[in-house]
């Protein structure tokens, strides 16, 4: 067995063991932390499968943002009721084990039999790769996302916006205990933020610009931008606001507006719907998407319709 297979084996075992720990661990917080670790092992698995775009997305979104959202939700429950039992009881279900075994067997059967299907010569992936040689895009994933299946990407932005609106719609008045995050006066916080926040903007911009030719893109960039926002929310430099201003509304919808604006506007020039006119359009749309994704995720984290600077 060579080293590569050994790494594969370690990753596979790691995924299984961590997944088991995530669902069987009794303390909720530890479970969430294990889930973040699970996400990072997944990111390594994506790297081994030669999908660095997915590795970046998994690390930033799957592990990072999801973990942060879950920890924030758990913290909210703790604030509402500090006597929250840290351990949650397991439900008793006699069918759980057999159903789980059947589900695993079913998925394994489907997966293993699908592996035996010969890749179609006219598969969508190969067609996309062929067509991409005519464009200036070096990253095939960005090409598929923005040129060939851009309706998916457009609707994905819509889903993100709807999730934000939905989260606002179901939010009930905050519990009196849920006061804003207390601003910490620790002397190093300011210095830390002075490094972290500009760094998140720098990395996000790099991921965005590099994303046309190398691994990266608007989603990964947006998640990194959101991480900067999360740091500001956690340290109360940005605080939940009551009403979103025009800037917030524009920023949250920018991705959708730019996509629809260019995609529909192009029809006036005799093109078909959503046929993007060139690389500049991709950059414009991706930048708008990055801003929207970053702010939407930060707002979902803060659980507020808007973020405002701290009162002077």
């Amino acid at each position, binding site marked *: 067995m060579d080293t590569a*297979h050994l790494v*594969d*084996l370690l990753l*596979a075992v790691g*995924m*299984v063991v961590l*997944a088991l720990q*995530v*669902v069987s661990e009794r303390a*909720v917080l530890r479970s*969430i932390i294990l*889930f973040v670790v699970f996400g990072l092992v997944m990111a390594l698995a994506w790297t081994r*499968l*030669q999908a660095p775009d*997915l590795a970046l*997305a998994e690390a930033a979104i*799957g592990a990072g943002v*999801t973990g942060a*959202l*879950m920890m*924030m*939700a758990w913290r*909210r*429950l703790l604030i509402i*009721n500090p006597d929250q039992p840290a351990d949650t*009881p*397991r*439900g008793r279900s006699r*069918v*759980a*084990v057999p159903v*789980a075994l059947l*589900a*695993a*067997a079913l*998925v394994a059967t*489907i*997966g293993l039999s*699908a*592996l035996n299907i010969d*890749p179609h010569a006219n*598969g*969508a*992936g*190969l067609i*996309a*790769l062929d067509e991409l040689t005519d464009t200036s895009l070096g990253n095939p*994933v960005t090409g598929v996302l923005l040129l060939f*299946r851009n309706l998916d990407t457009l609707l*994905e932005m819509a*889903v993100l916006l709807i999730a*934000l609106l939905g989260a606002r719609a*179901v*939010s009930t*008045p*905050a519990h009196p205990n849920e006061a804003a995050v207390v601003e910490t006066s620790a002397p190093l916080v300011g210095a830390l933020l002075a490094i972290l926040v500009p760094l998140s903007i720098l990395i996000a911009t790099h991921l965005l610009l590099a994303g046309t030719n190398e691994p990266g*893109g608007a*989603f990964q960039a947006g998640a990194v931008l959101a991480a900067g926002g999360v740091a500001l929310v956690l340290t109360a430099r940005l605080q939940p606001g009551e009403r979103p201003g025009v800037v917030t509304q524009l920023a949250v919808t920018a991705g959708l507006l730019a996509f629809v604006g260019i995609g529909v506007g192009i029809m006036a020039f005799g093109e078909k719907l959503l046929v993007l006119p060139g690389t500049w359009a991709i950059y414009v749309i991706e930048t708008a998407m990055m801003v929207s*994704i970053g702010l939407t995720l930060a707002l*979902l984290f803060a659980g507020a319709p808007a973020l405002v600077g701290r009162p002077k």
Partner: protein
Amino acid sequence: MTEILFVLAASVVFGIGVWGLLIAEHLLRKLLALNVMSSSVFIIMLVVAGGGPDGPDPVAQALILTGIVIAVAATAFALALMVSIYRKTGRASITEKGDDDR
């Protein structure tokens, strides 16, 4: 070899997710289990799609990327629902037993 290994591991992870979903009472745990399940499905999607010398099928990668973002959006919405349920009922579960003793 690598493909078979990852498909098998992902199937086991999927089963673990189903098990976790069924035995969890706390809604946060149910969401964790669902996220574990979705990760395993993404792995299988990519491995099964195959690919060429330049890496896996780009269409599969784009679909999975979309899936990861949708998963986090759905999770965020579900967490907001959970917090709302907790504010109203003081519980973060929706078991039948709980309905009786409310």
